[in-house]
């Protein structure tokens, strides 16, 4: 469950957004509408002027990024020097969580990771799979996906499979999209324009 009500600014751009819900949420809007700004504010990379980010009933607004349990995934969210398998469990290892082989291989097969090698040498689509799987296996409370589904050839199937895995792990997902029809892949759809969100049911 996430409850977000934030006012923030980046340069002259003003954000006044609200996102509430659990499960899968899609934030749709055209280029420059404020999707990235909203997700960055939620992840803690943009200073919030006013408002709150509540995750699972816990107010994480003032917590440092690494303590929020919120992961932002973009197309560049990869650790180039690692190989695929150590990349996937990087966050789990860091948290001192047990690494379960079944869980890792299930994520790999469901998300189409049938390749290995150094992450920096993979194609963009492959890297997106690896970073999204890494976020999943770390088991944060929320995963925010900014454009990181964009280069997947099986985009819709991937989002569906990814959402299923996240529901199983009780992780909420918020993803941005240019296309409001992506709302059909989500439990909730928000439209964003000029930094202002509106709920679309």
């Amino acid at each position, binding site marked *: 469950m996430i409850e977000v009500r934030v006012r923030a600014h980046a340069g002259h751009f003003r954000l006044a957004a609200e996102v509430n819900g659990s499960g899968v949420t899609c934030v749709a809007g055209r280029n420059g509408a404020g999707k990235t700004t909203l997700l960055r504010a939620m992840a803690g990379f943009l200073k919030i002027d006013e408002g709150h980010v509540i995750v699972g009933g816990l107010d994480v607004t003032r917590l440092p990024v*690494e303590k929020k349990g919120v992961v*932002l995934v973009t197309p*560049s969210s990869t650790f180039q020097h690692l190989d695929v398998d150590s990349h996937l469990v990087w966050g789990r290892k860091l948290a001192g969580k047990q690494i379960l082989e079944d869980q890792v291989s299930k994520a790999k097969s469901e998300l189409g990771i049938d390749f290995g090698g150094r992450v920096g040498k993979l194609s963009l689509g492959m890297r997106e799979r690896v970073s999204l799987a890494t976020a999943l296996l770390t088991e*944060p409370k929320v995963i925010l996906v900014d454009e990181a589904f964009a280069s997947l050839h099986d985009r819709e199937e991937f989002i569906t499979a990814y959402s299923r895995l996240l529901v199983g792990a009780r992780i909420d997902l918020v993803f941005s999209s240019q296309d409001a029809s992506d709302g059909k892949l989500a439990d909730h759809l928000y439209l964003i324009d000029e930094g202002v969100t509106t709920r679309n049911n």
Partner: protein
Amino acid sequence: MNWLRAVSIAAVVLLLIPIAVLLYYGLGPFRSPAGYTTAVFRSIELSIVASAVAALIDFALFTPVAYYLARGNDAIVESLIDIPVGIPHPIIGVALLILDSPLTPTGQFLLFLGINFFNTILGLVVALVIMSAPIYIKAMQPFFESRDASAEEFAMGLGASRMRTLVSIVLPDSVSGVVSASLVAMSRALGEFGSISIIAFYVLQYPFYGVSPASVTIFQLFNGAIPGGLNAAVTASAAMILVALPITVAGHFFRRRSR
């Protein structure tokens, strides 16, 4: 005619003329065996070792500072770094002397701990760190700033602290940048004279007992420490340049690779 290019080349040539002339005379007409004695080579050796150690300390202590400045926004720390740069170098030597003098409480304390800067390798290295660290930071900071922050933000989202992110994510990906900045810092340390001529005119420890840093040795030769000292100073200077040049070139090479 590309005037920008012509002016640039001419200006750089002006910069290099004195060095070229020195190399020519040092290795040619003024060449003197007194300029490449064992004593001269020992002092070049001391300078290289002390500068390399200083560069290693720069790396260990000031890489986090450069990263902090690149990713944070701390104008105060940033301007504090410029202080040693803006002070005439001999003053840093005097400052270290006072800090570690038997006449001051700080010195009494440090000497009680066995920490002595005056005419020691330690004092030499400390002075070189102070003089080269700002250069190291100034080389490393833009390197970090030019990195895409996405991977670092991802690591932090996965639960890594800033320090952990630097060590596990940024550094493995920054080898060429670190090597380049360290070599630039080392060349800077090799060229230091003002501060070390006061705090460590010569050092009194094994394996460099009685050896002066190269810049000090050259200064002594120039001042007529031995008859025919000028020729010896010019030859020793040329030898020093030949040693320092590859380090500068290597730093440049790694900087290009890191782009």
